[in-house]
């Protein structure tokens, strides 16, 4: 079934030579709650995204991955607060921009496809009209013929016939609505697209079509993509690098091959053992006992300690720092203390 020769691993290596587009440093986000202490949704997150790089942001529900993305886009709900850190896009600190400047960044530099967004299309406006709105607002000085041509080109790019621009969302299938959402995200030529669980609600075959489309767009347009997902299979197929989050913090961050073939954090190791692998159908699945922590009720010490098979005394008292294991591999676990470079 599989033919490993089809794909190359040179892409991940070459990505490291490209310029850094996005540099997230020490980002911490709280959700405030007037009756209780704030929920620490994201703590001290560091990562970079290079031009043309595909980063997988992996974690279970409630691990803070969507909050991290909303935070760097400055789209947090009212209770969300960025309490520390910085987000640089090509050297510009996004957290220091005015709201108007940020609005421009959101379409022209970084755009986001929200989870379940294919159900968020306005049902009483045509698809073309909804894509056109983004173009008209953020790329003014284009006459209607130019906007129209651009809508057709965007639809063509995602594999939808241009003449379907005048149809309404209910006339599109689920897969086509997701394609339309991708076209909308590309409306103003962003360099970075954040896709939050873009295929979760889709059938496997439609999911494969969308993933193939995103891979092709990445190559054709040189896009950088952040894939937010809990699906380790999707990440292995598409990404150059992977950031594994647990309980609002980085568990492990490395290139894709290291994460899957030489993971060092116990959470990464356990998560991989729990994920079914169709190439080993008789392989035993192991679950991780317990469940992820609530962000308003975090354990003292390491956030994975209550579920960790390798836990020892110190893990329950102290939060492990992030250890750098090599140039592009970090993990947050006391077991790795001696290996830090």
């Amino acid at each position, binding site marked *: *079934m*599989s*033919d*490993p020769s*089809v*794909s190359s*691993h040179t892409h991940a290596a070459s990505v490291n030579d490209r310029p850094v587009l996005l540099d997230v440093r020490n980002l911490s986000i709280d959700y405030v709650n007037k009756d209780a202490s704030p929920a620490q949704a994201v703590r001290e997150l560091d990562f970079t995204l290079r031009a043309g790089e595909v980063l997988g942001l992996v974690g*279970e*529900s409630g691990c803070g991955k969507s909050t991290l993305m909303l935070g760097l886009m400055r789209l947090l709900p009212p209770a969300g607060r960025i309490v520390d850190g910085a987000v640089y896009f090509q050297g510009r600190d996004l957290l220091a921009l005015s709201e108007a400047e940020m609005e421009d960044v959101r379409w022209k530099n970084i755009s986001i496809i929200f989870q379940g967004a294919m159900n968020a299309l306005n049902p009483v406006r045509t698809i073309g009209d909804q894509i056109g709105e983004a173009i008209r607002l953020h790329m003014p000085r284009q006459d209607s013929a130019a906007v129209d041509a651009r809508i057709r080109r965007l639809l063509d790019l995602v594999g939808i016939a241009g003449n379907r621009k005048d149809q309404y969302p209910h006339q599109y*299938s689920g*897969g086509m609505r997701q394609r339309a959402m991708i076209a909308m995200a590309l409306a103003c030529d962003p360099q970075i697209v954040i896709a939050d669980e873009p295929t979760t609600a889709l*059938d*496997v*075959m*439609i*999911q*494969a*079509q969308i*993933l*193939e489309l995103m891979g092709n767009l990445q190559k054709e347009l040189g896009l950088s993509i952040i894939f937010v997902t*809990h*699906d*380790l*299979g*999707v990440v*292995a*197929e598409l*990404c150059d690098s992977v950031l594994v989050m647990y309980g609002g913090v980085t568990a492990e961050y490395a290139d*894709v*091959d290291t994460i*899957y*073939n030489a993971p060092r954090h116990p959470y990464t190791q*356990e*998560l*991989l053992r*729990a*994920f*079914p*692998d*169709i*190439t*080993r*159908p*008789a*392989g*035993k*699945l*192991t*679950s*991780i*006992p317990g*469940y*992820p922590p609530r962000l308003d009720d975090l354990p003292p010490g390491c956030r994975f300690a209550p579920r960790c098979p390798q836990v020892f005394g110190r893990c329950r008292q102290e939060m492990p720092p992030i250890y750098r294991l090599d140039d592009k591999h970090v993990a947050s676990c006391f077991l790795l203390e001696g290996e830090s470079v």
Partner: protein
Amino acid sequence: MTMPRAISGNELPGKDGVLTVTNLQKRFLLGRAGIFGRGSESYVHAVDDVSFSLGRGEVLALVGESGCGKSTLALTLLGLEKPTRGSIRFEGNEISEYSSAQMKNVRRHMQMIFQDPYESLNPLMSIGEIVMEPLKVHKLGGSRAEQETRVVRALEDAGLKPADRYLKRLPHELSGGQRQRVVIAGALVLEPTLLLADEPVSMLDVSIRAEILNLLAELRDTRGISILFITHDLGTVGALADRVAVMYLGRIVEIGPTMAVLTNPQHPYTKALLSVVPVPNPRLRHKRLILSGETPDPINLPTGCRFHPRCPLAVDACRKTDPPLHPAGAGQEVACILVE
């Protein structure tokens, strides 16, 4: 009515069959063509000529994409939809013509587990009340004390031990995995012989999916419960199913032992479905057989083989011949004229 447990050997394939479905069809009348409705009737062909059997303590996975008819099939087995044609034998009884009162009795023995443990539990009822409810509906379990004993046993069999830690709690106090265990306990309390599990893990986090799959496998092994495991994810069937049936547009296109289907698939649709399951290892990135387009609507079915418009191997004859299931591969049955 009581459900006789005795099963005569020659009526069912294998002397320990629980469920035998033969040529089952379920279609929904959509309307008539023509402005005065005098034209031909049009139907949604949801399930068409499906046959399979399920042994005692066996897990059969029913795999397919949305719209392939797998959920309609489950609803028809439960008597929530009336079959258009065909036979359903459950525990030796032909139930396809049963009245709804008779089916209520059957459903004590045939329980459904739904996909979403967040939506299928009443948020205002305690866990104990939720698991007790089926006993009240079916007026089972004798005295209050006996009912309580059964609730405790169902919760503990579903892995919520000790049960008294959960009885008084409300659904929102539990994690997703624990809620799905409550749903399973609600089915187990009736001591069913057959569980219809419709996507029981697809809403759960990866780290807890395995524990629910392992729980279902344990119920099969210790209680001898038969399970029809409905899923769109071929990745999860290896861990649980003894046999796999792949459905496309209302038909079973391939059925056989799990390892045979997963390692040596015969039907072109099965091969395509397997090739698109993401593999959690970047060193095994491979060419995927991505079918273009989407499953055609089940109203205007393609002529001949229903899969031919999307089949990468289709030849002329596929447009004309509607292929029956025939033996192929390592113990499978396959509906494709190109497979010997």
